[in-house]
């Protein structure tokens, strides 16, 4: 394929492993920052995770100047404006986001306002509106899933207009993502499972989609291998710091893969289901993943088949005939889902969620067609196709 073309970009420094948090003061100093603000939510604070971060500043000659710990699960421009005011009033010069997707997106919004000296976040919505680097910004993920620490987008709701504002800019990427095993150690089993399956989906869709490229592929395959090898281990032994770190790294690697190669129909359907029936994103990913792969299998079987190696290991891969590997890869994912259902009741079908009614399928399909990620699905999807996948997922 001499006509192929791709772009790959990830300027985020990865600071990962044992005592990673203690590197934050030094990293701030190299960016000429000394007065950081922590942005987090009540759950993270309540779990005592902020103490680890504050502990890392002891003996560092630097203090955390301000902590905002009330980011809601669905953040809004109102919250962002409020935090930006606090940042300015306290004379902060940098941001440390400690949390999951909502905290990270909120922090990206705050960074826009405080760096551009703006009051109205809506003015910065869209693609390429930002034109210069923002304040030093670090992300400490406390879930291993979204990959938001390495993506250049943020979605923040505008409650007045009732719309979700997208922000896209290279300048939204943090300066560093800090992966410390302490930060995911206490994550409950069902959230660990959901977020890991979100990361799994990022990697699988990046690898099998239209935007696939050799560099993203390398990240995606490694991420899938780490998740397959460590998810059950973490559920069996929640305080296994090494396995936790493996999941955290896998999540970041999958984030790097999909922010360059994009995602596909699993996300189109999942975004619709999440919005219409208020189900968590990772749950939706886990639910749709095998049905979409089955939909893509006829045209994309060879590529899906390559995933059998990171999913099931060398022995299974070697003894499975090439023509059967795509199907076998999907079956391996189904086995993982069955196990997650057994352990934490993570639904495998729309009916198992207990929150979807059958007459919502038409609406879900229509919404999925208008989702941007559908264009990157390797196989064309029209309304009838989307409905048929949803019926199979019933």
């Amino acid at each position, binding site marked *: 394929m001499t006509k192929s073309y791709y772009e790959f970009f990830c300027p985020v420094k990865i600071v990962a492993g044992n005592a990673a948090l203690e590197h934050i003061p030094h990293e701030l100093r190299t960016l000429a920052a000394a007065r950081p603000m922590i942005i987090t939510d009540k759950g993270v604070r309540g779990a005592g995770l902020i103490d680890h971060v504050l502990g890392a500043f002891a003996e560092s000659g630097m203090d955390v100047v301000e902590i905002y710990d009330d980011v809601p699960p669905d953040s809004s421009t109102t919250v962002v404006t409020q935090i930006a005011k606090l940042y300015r009033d306290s004379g902060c010069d940098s941001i440390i986001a400690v949390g999951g997707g909502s905290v990270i997106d909120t922090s990206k919004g705050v960074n826009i306002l405080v760096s551009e000296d703006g009051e109205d976040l809506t003015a910065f919505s*869209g*693609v390429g509106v930002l034109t210069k680097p923002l304040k030093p910004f670090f992300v400490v993920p406390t879930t291993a899933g979204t990959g938001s620490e390495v993506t250049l987008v943020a979605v923040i709701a505008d409650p007045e207009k009732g719309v979700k504002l*997208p922000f896209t800019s290279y300048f939204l990427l943090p300066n560093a993502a800090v992966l410390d095993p302490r930060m995911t150690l206490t994550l409950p089993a069902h959230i660990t499972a959901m977020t890991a399956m979100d990361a799994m989906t990022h990697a699988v869709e990046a690898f099998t989609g*239209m935007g696939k490229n050799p560099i993203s592929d390398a990240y995606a395959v490694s991420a899938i291998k780490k998740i397959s090898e460590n998810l059950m281990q973490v559920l069996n032994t929640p305080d296994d710091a090494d396995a936790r770190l493996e999941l955290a790294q896998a999540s970041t690697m999958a984030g790097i893969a999909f922010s360059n190669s994009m995602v596909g129909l699993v996300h189109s359907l999942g975004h619709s289901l999440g919005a219409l029936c208020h189900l968590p994103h990772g749950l939706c990913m886990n639910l749709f993943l095998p049905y979409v792969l089955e939909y893509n299998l006829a045209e994309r079987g060879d590529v899906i088949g390559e995933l059998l190696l990171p999913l099931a290991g060398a022995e299974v891969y070697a003894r499975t005939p090439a023509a059967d590997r795509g199907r076998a890869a999907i079956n391996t994912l189904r086995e993982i889902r069955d196990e997650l259902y057994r352990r934490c009741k993570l639904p495998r079908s729309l009916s198992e969620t207990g929150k979807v009614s059958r007459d919502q399928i038409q609406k879900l399909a229509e919404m999925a*067609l208008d989702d*941007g990620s559908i*264009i*990157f699905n390797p*196989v*064309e999807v029209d309304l009838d196709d989307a409905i048929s996948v949803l019926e199979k997922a019933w």
Partner: protein
Amino acid sequence: MKQLLQLKLGDLNLGSLNTAPLKRPYVALMMDVIGRGLEASSQVDANIKREVQKLPDGFMFDMRALPSGPCFVMEKNADGNLSYIGSEAPRKPDVSLKFKHLNHAFLVLSFQEGTARAFANDRILVDGEIAHAMKLVRCLNRMESLILPKFVAVRALKRYPQLSLKQKLAGGGKIYSRLAKNLVWG
């Protein structure tokens, strides 16, 4: 016809990608054709009508090659169809599909690179609401499937729709005759 078309595309691709002098006029011509084709097909094709129906009234979009064109602009009119405005937008369009370079527009408009492939290859920037842009992409794909010869359309589309020859001739024919009428009546 087949050889002729391939020969022409081949000529345009000879030598350096950047120096073919015919690319700018070709892209401008094709944008004009697509603009008029969308206008005509939004009046006759049920699939495209259905998509346009879901766009807000007065919705305006353009497709352009950065940095300075060519460009075509469309608007949803009071009848609920798409009107071809021309190559100049009277206001900032609600959705703008921007090719990063004239050559990327050329690849897509000479049907060597499909729309979805162009998105996946980072050739196109979308300015505006993605949900609307997705409807436009479906309209473009549908129109291509109807008016292009199958051997060209199969390269540009992820999937060539199941169109019977009759549907294709009827759909394509209606678009062509509507196109002719629109041209005559202005």
